[in-house]
């Protein structure tokens, strides 16, 4: 709890050190000496003295000042020899500051930097994992090519370290070494390959990052680790999640076939729920499209991350769904993306850009949320324009009237750039939705009498474009604009009107010459752009109506001839040669009419985000709309999926046989019992949810009652005393245990999937429920498998399959619905009043068991203190 007061004080102390060289806090003699120097170059001298003194505090003070210099971007490189001596200091802070210095200047002072290497080499052998890690971190950050072999060696050793933290550091070091010396690629890939096999969540993110940097094309390294990465994903730290998700997106695009085909909806679920490999093969042959279970696994395991607090993770999942999920499933990301719009301005900017791209292809996704894109006067301009873009994309016959009403408000905005953009947007709506074209045109014409010039100008420009697209019956509007011509002063708008006159001079044969007459009067006072269009109009009229306008044209051409601006003089000369036939003019003048009055293609009013979808969503390239350095093209779906067996992990094969045995031997142990119970319990939760979600009437009584018990326990912990509940739950847990055993005997299939989860259990025994929860969550497929089994435990196998097939597809397809149905459970009064022993408390106890790292007591009591309100 640092407070304002405290930092002020601290600040004062440091400021004194920073600013006044006089006030060295320690010995008076040195202090006096420093006081004499104030010039910059000499200041470093005193720092040197301080560093060479044998007082720790002086050295530290000096290093702090040096870091201050570095932070300001001032050079302190000449102090290198003095600083590097302190690399082996005992004082941790001093040491860390020396590291900062070293990493900053080692590149410049390579020879001297070598002095420090031996210190790090020694530290690499330290028994403390943090010291090993930090030594490797600094060693690999020193960009001195000579030590590449040393770094290579250190990385290789660290990659095999017992501590996952050190292994993580080695993954970071790989990237550093690679950027220092790309020739080491092959060796580094070996290390990456090894680290990819690592089962620690700490390492996963960093090694995938290294993979992306060093060898993003070696997709073959991922195969064996694919399922593990999917399963670990929830537990990886948030930054690692982003990297892994984007890598897996690319991977999935190369390994699975496109789910964007007709009739894919119903088959995929079945394919997923049966993780049995034999059945899989059968299905791939039989059906036109079946989602690969691994493909489904990825989608499943990333979905909960939509709830991450980290906006980058949410965006990463959103893009994964956009690029990989079947079309009807993509919309689950909508809500989360809209939620991000409440975040910081910069986040809004990126998210809106991505929504803009998505909304072009899939209007339906964001249409229900259209109000979230309404503009506030307090938004930054670029946010406003992006929202406008999205609103325009979302406009359709049904909502156009609402949107246009919104636009009416925006047009009046004080932010004129935004008002102008709104007019453009109205123009786009008008072209896209033919029903409102006339309304929009009329509205725009009304805007012509607006007091603000930019608005008028923009309206005229947009009207011009609109008229070009359908020039037939709009003589009225052109006439109206001619009338306005006197009052409009914005050059661009005047020029646009003149162009319109010229282009459609045959539709307004009486007005056009009159406008030209007016222009002839004011020609000299006009802006250049208007003059050019005047010349243009004169030429066109001369060609169509030379009787009336010949003299006018000549007059204007003469004015133009002597204009100050050379562009205008040039244009005048050119036009004269083109339209006035004389001996000198060549063949061109014959074609003057065709040149000047050629039908011009109407400008296409379309979204600026039209072609952005060529970039993967959420990338820098997408944001900038150009290919950034190092951008990895998202591959197209393969026509035929590569062999999926490559993802089978070798160890699975023996385990398929051995797993049940392992499970059995483990379960009797008291320590592990908690976890396995938990596992079971979680599975049952699963069954509970899916059961109720699908409204499966055949869900057995067993699971039904259990679900009641669970929920009752949740809400009614107060009334059940702990002893009773624990004994009760033990009973039920043993039941479920036996259930599981039965299951394992009856079917081999689940083991294949549940195996990695089991591993992570044993890895994370000490670390408790997070790992637990996720491991059970991540092996969703086997969960659901076991659900159905426990559901129909008493039934014969045949109906079991039926229910499975019937129920499960529904759940997955209507995943939204599932949620709402679940919610209704909260309102059913029954469970709340039934204090029963339950499985859940047992699971919680087990959670706790894992959690309290130090003092484990098997009979944990939880306080059931009443819930209190604070006023």
């Amino acid at each position: 709890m640092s407070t304002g007061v405290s930092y002020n004080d601290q600040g004062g102390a440091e400021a004194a050190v920073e600013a006044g060289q006089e006030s060295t806090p320690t010995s008076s003699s040195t202090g006096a000496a420093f006081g004499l120097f104030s010039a910059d170059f000499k200041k470093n001298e005193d720092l040197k003295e301080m560093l060479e003194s044998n007082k720790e505090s002086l050295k530290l003070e000096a290093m702090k000042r040096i870091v201050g210099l570095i932070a300001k971007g001032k050079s302190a490189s000449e102090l290198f020899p003095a600083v590097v001596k302190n690399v082996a200091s005992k004082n941790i802070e001093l040491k860390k500051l020396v590291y900062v210095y070293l990493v900053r200047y080692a590149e410049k002072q390579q020879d001297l930097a070598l002095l420090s290497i031996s210190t790090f080499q020694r530290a690499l052998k330290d028994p403390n994992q943090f010291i090993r890690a930090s030594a490797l971190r600094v060693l690999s950050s020193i960009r001195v090519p000579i030590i590449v072999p040393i770094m290579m060696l250190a990385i290789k050793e660290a990659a095999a370290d017992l501590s996952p933290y050190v292994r993580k550091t080695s993954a970071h070091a790989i990237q550093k070494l690679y950027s220092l010396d790309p020739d080491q690629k092959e060796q580094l890939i070996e290390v990456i390959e090894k680290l990819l096999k690592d089962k620690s969540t700490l390492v996963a993110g960093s090694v995938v990052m290294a993979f992306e940097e060093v060898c993003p094309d070696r997709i073959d390294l991922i195969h064996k680790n694919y399922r593990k990465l999917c399963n670990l994903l929830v537990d990886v730290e948030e930054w690692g999640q982003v990297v892994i998700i984007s890598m897996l997106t690319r991977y999935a695009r190369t390994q699975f076939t496109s789910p964007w085909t007709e009739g894919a909806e119903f088959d995929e679920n079945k394919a997923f729920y049966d993780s049995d490999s034999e059945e899989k093969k059968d299905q791939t042959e039989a059906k036109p499209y079946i989602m690969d279970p691994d493909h489904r696994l990825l989608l499943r395991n990333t979905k909960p991350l939509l709830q991450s607090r980290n906006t980058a993770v949410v965006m990463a999942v959103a893009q994964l769904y956009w690029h990989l999920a079947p079309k009807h499933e993509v919309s689950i990301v909508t809500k989360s993306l809209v939620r991000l719009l409440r975040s910081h301005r910069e986040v809004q900017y990126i998210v809106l850009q991505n929504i803009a791209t998505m909304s072009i292809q899939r209007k339906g996704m964001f249409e229900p949320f259209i109000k979230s894109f309404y503009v506030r006067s307090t938004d930054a301009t670029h946010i406003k324009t992006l929202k406008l873009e999205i609103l325009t994309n979302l406009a359709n016959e049904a909502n156009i009237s609402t949107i246009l009403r919104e636009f009416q408000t925006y047009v009046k905005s004080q932010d004129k750039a935004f008002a102008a953009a709104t007019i453009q947007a109205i123009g786009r709506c008008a072209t896209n939705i033919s029903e409102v074209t006339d309304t929009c045109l009329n509205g725009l014409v009304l805007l012509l009498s607006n007091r603000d010039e930019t608005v008028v100008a923009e309206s005229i420009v947009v009207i011009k474009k609109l008229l070009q697209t359908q020039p037939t019956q709009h003589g009225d509007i052109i006439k109206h604009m001619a009338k306005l011509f006197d009052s409009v002063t914005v050059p661009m708008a005047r020029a646009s009107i003149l162009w319109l006159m010229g282009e459609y001079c045959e539709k307004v044969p009486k007005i056009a010459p009159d406008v030209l007459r007016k222009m002839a009067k004011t020609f000299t006072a006009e802006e250049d752009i208007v003059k050019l269009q005047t010349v243009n109009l004169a030429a066109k009229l001369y060609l169509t109506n030379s009787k009336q306008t010949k003299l006018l044209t000549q007059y204007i051409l003469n004015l133009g001839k002597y204009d100050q601006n050379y562009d205008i003089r040039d244009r005048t000369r050119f036009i004269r040669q083109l339209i006035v036939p004389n001996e000198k003019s060549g063949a061109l003048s014959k074609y003057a009419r065709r040149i000047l009055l050629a039908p011009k293609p109407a400008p296409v009013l379309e979204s600026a985000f039209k072609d952005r979808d060529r970039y993967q969503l959420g990338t820098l390239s997408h944001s900038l709309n150009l290919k950034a350095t190092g951008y990895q093209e998202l591959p197209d779906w393969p026509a035929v999926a590569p062999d999926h067996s490559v993802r089978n992990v070798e160890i699975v094969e023996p385990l398929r046989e051995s797993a049940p045995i392992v499970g059995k031997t483990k379960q009797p142990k008291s320590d592990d019992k908690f976890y396995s119970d938990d596992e079971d319990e979680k599975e049952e939760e699963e069954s509970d949810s899916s059961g109720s979600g699908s409204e499966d009437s055949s869900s057995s009584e067993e699971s039904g009652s259990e679900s009641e018990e669970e929920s009752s326990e949740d809400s009614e912990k107060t009334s059940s005393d702990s002893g009773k509940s624990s004994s009760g739950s033990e009973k039920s847990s043993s039941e479920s245990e036996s259930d599981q055993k039965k299951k394992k005997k009856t079917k081999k299939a689940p083991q294949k999937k549940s195996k990695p989860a089991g591993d992570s259990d044993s890895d994370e025994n000490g670390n408790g429920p997070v790992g637990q929860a996720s491991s059970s969550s991540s092996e969703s497929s086997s969960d659901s498998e076991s659900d159905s089994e426990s559901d129909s435990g008493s039934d014969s196998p045949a109906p079991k399959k039926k229910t499975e097939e019937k129920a499960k597809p529904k759940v997955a397809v209507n995943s939204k619905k599932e949620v709402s149905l679940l919610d209704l459970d909260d309102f059913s009064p029954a469970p709340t009043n039934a204090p029963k022993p339950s499985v859940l408390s047992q699971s919680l106890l087990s959670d706790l068991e894992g959690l309290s790292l130090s003092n484990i007591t098997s009979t944990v009591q939880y306080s059931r203190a009443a819930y209190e309100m604070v006023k």
Partner: protein
Amino acid sequence: MIHSLFLINHLGDIFLEKHWKSVISRSVCDYFFEAREKAVDPENVPPVLQTPHHYLISIYRGKLFFLSVIQTEVPPLFVIEFLHRVADTFQDYFGGCSESVISDNVVIVYELLEEMLDNGFPLATESNVLKEMIRPPNILRSVVNTLTGGSNVGETLPQGQLSNIPWRRAGVKYTNNEAYFDVTEEIDAIVDKSGTTVSAEIQGVIEACVKLSGMPDLTMSFMNPRLLDDVSFHPCVRFRRWESERILSFIPPDGNFTLMTYHISSQNLVAIPVYVKQSISFFEAGSCGRLDITIGPKQTMGKTVEDLKVTVHMPKAVLNANLTASQGNYTYDFTTKLLVWDIGKLNPQKLPNLRGSLSMQTGVPNPEENPSLNIDLKIQQLAISGLKVSRLDMYGETYKPFKGVKYVTKAGKFQVRT
């Protein structure tokens, strides 16, 4: 990923730079300054810029620009999120994020930045882990340090980083064990001229201050969890429990943190606590305008509306305001054109009213658009969505904690168009 970081103040001076890979000259910032110049308002600077060799991603926080230099493709949100995390960390450590604060603590800032990124990839961003490694400054320690030459760097090594729950440090001990939760809801609404709600949504957040010893495992359940269909969680919350039972189950970090945020979208019916009757008009003749605003309670669920405040960003032409307020007082800032009416408590019997005339600059055309009103308000002990925490239980520890939940509703981006 992130190559370098520059901190730039509102004057455009670079006052801190940090490089995680080789040094990049600060001249790269010139491209940013160019864009900054063009944007006029610092809010309008595009967050992502491109230069010939680098990409610049910046955020604007507390009048400072955090500008990061990128060399290769990276998700921009990744960088933006990280930069905000850096700013949050500074806020957390120093209680502020201004230039003076950062310059005063430059060594700690540097140490933090060193730990937060390794080779441009985030390493330790959890506040609890960082605080174990680098202690936040406080008076006592800085005094002791100057006397003894002690340091701010923790002697212990951060075990938290290793565990599966990196957000919580081990060995937490308190004499008073307490857990407080603040449910804060902000109403974002746009109300149009006639008083109809154009859009309204609720942004809710549950902030927690948990000071519990050991490794407590908390569960929080709600009376009406189906309200929450769009949520995001602190990493400590177990997704699975939420999905299956709609219960928040978590081992909390130590100290202050944001447990969850939720969003109730405009598709739902959102109660608007106040209504506003207003008329603002500008007259062509006499170059003056009239303003009349009345505010009354609408759906307040029987609670009092407090801290009511109306902010109007007047058009440029308005020179002065000559108004009378029946309650509270108003100020008009001539330079920023900001009219602020601070009302205070809303009394349903006697509705607050502000009326009077506006004097306009002569010879300037009347503004087209009437300015919109931004409303601020606060309602204690009410979550406007109706969300209620039904219970909070703790497992894993034997002591009895003190628990408390507080509700408050505020106006977020509450705008009334006129």
